């Protein structure tokens, strides 16, 4: 099915800066979904994959970029090629697996063959073409902009998009803290989970970027039962001191620190690597870091959860990245990867993977609760009865222009931790992109 683009959008304003409210109608709406695709997903930089997923020449993973199936390939020349996963001849899907290793893409229909640089190598019937056919024009349809930041591969369908560095901007400081805190950087711990949730992608994005209130209600289960590294009093104190940070472009992160032994719950052997790789302001954070959770605009989130005691005296933290792929109004496919430092021992990586999936993802005792609630919203956001009763982010208002001064990182940091500041800023940024006419 196609052609949802002609569906009208619900009436504006969608965001009311004055009252800190947000229209119920922007969640699970066909018109909004189509406009988001045009104004945000087809224009922005979007996450595609991590370099560790396609380490060797010929490695490929298949992903979606703004809904379109693409091939992300490590080229023979070591570069990264990203192409619409569709034969240039007559459209058949070229790469028909999640991931694999293949140096050429041979179309199963008529045998057109492409190199992993996208060039057409053969049609099998080159001689039947009109004289003067320029076969170099018949290569794969490339994603026009591809760039990486310390192993994170992004792409954009928008040839005019600014540099990736500008898109990430100050937020790179925070990405380093999680994905580039050792010389080797991070590595994925296996292929991603894939699961489908009947929720709007924004609901997921603002939950990670960051809904700090829901933790003690939605996640009362694991908070009560799990053997976390801190006692309740420590946690409550830490939450009081924690900050939420917003950087230009709609990115945000929440950081909870608990002073104590430096890097207390990170593997011993990595401590010197952190010290060597990060700058001092970053080290200040990481040494005491208990929880980090973030959304990179628009639809990439990550979390490093509180350490748990998995054996007497042994603590492990899971580091997970997830992408909320919009697949329709009010519907996402979630990709969820676990990460660890490349230099971590095999044992630690195994433990981090176990920790990660037991807490988050489709089988995680935390995330199983979130998705249940997120998926109940769409059905309820469409009633005309809700008009005049917008969603409430009013706790964002008192301190929205009042960042704290004691945070060592870039961007604007806020307290109290439980106020809805970064979530509202995310939606304000969304609103700006959705309502301003493109240049």
């Amino acid at each position: 099915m196609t052609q949802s683009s002609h569906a009208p959008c619900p009436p504006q304003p969608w965001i009311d800066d004055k009252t800190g409210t947000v229209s119920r109608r922007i969640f699970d709406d066909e018109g909004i979904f189509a406009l988001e695709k045009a104004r945000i997903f087809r224009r922005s930089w979007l996450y595609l994959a991590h370099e560790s997923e396609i380490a060797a020449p010929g490695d490929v993973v298949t992903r979606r970029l703004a809904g379109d199936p693409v091939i992300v390939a490590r080229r023979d020349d070591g570069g990264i090629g990203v192409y619409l996963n569709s034969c240039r001849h007559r459209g058949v899907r070229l790469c028909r697996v999640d991931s694999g290793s293949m140096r050429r893409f041979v179309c199963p229909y008529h045998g057109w063959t492409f190199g992993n640089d996208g060039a057409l190598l053969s049609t099998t019937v080159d001689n039947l073409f009109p004289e003067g056919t320029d076969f170099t024009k018949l290569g794969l349809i490339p994603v026009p902009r591809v760039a990486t930041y310390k192993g994170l591969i992004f792409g954009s369908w928008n040839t005019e998009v600014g540099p990736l560095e500008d898109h990430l901007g100050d937020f790179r400081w925070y990405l380093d803290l999680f994905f580039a805190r050792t010389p080797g950087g991070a590595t994925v711990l296996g292929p991603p989970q894939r699961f489908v949730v009947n929720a709007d992608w924004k609901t997921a994005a603002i939950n990670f970027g960051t809904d700090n209130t829901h933790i003690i209600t939605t996640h009362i289960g694991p908070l009560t039962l799990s053997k976390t590294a801190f006692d309740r009093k420590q946690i409550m104190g830490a939450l009081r001191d924690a900050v939420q940070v917003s950087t230009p472009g709609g990115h945000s992160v929440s950081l909870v620190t608990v002073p104590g032994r430096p890097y207390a719950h990170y593997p011993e052997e990595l401590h010197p690597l952190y010290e060597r790789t990060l700058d001092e302001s970053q080290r200040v954070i990481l040494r005491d870091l208990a929880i980090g959770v973030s959304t990179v605009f628009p639809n990439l989130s990550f979390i490093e959860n509180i350490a748990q005691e998995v054996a007497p005296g042994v603590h492990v933290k899971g580091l997970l990245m997830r992408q909320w792929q919009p697949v329709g109004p009010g519907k996402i496919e979630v990709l969820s990867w676990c990460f660890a430092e490349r230099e971590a021992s095999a044992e630690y990586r195994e433990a981090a993977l176990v920790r990660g999936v037991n807490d988050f993802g489709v089988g995680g005792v935390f995330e199983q609760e979130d998705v249940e609630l997120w998926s109940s919203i769409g059905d309820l956001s469409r009633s005309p009865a809700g008009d005049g009763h917008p969603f409430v982010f009013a706790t964002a208002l008192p301190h929205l222009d009042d960042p704290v001064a004691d945070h060592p990182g870039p961007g604007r940091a806020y307290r109290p931790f439980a106020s809805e500041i970064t979530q509202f800023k995310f939606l304000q940024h969304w609103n700006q992109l959705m309502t301003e006419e493109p240049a």
Partner: protein
Amino acid sequence: MTASPHPTTAAPVTDAEYRAVCEFLYDEAALLDQDAYAAWLGLLTADVRYRLRARTLRALDQAASTYRVVDNNAEELRIRVGQISDPRLTFAENPPSITRRHLHNIRVRAAAEPGELHVTVNVLLHRSRGVEGEEHCYSAQRHDVLRRTDDGYLLAAREVVLDSTVIKSMNVSVLF
């Protein structure tokens, strides 16, 4: 294809043992079907391990692979059960999913470890959830290890592989 952790060369067990194992599995499944978690926990060994994985899509000539979904040791499994069985601690399972575990193709082999049995079972787990009665049917294969004790069999390990690459059910807050 996924490699089975169980040797398939060992001889099948006696008829009596086979039936006893089936009875155990049926009773055990019925406890989960009924959300009778306290009784179910009584069927686990102290060192039980519970794992759930799903599949990836690979070419016919490239090695099959899975991704991890759950990997609980005994304590974590008890915590997981503690969560989904307590109305104050879960929303995913409150109201509870309505589940039915349909077991098939049960194969039982003596394990190398004396007193242990390797059991392979195909499972269709039917799940109805939410006020709209959304239904989902998981297909999976289970590799169980049972231990013979004075109180009958206990479950020492369960390894589940879902026959899916994309899980369509939002979460897997139910046990197989």
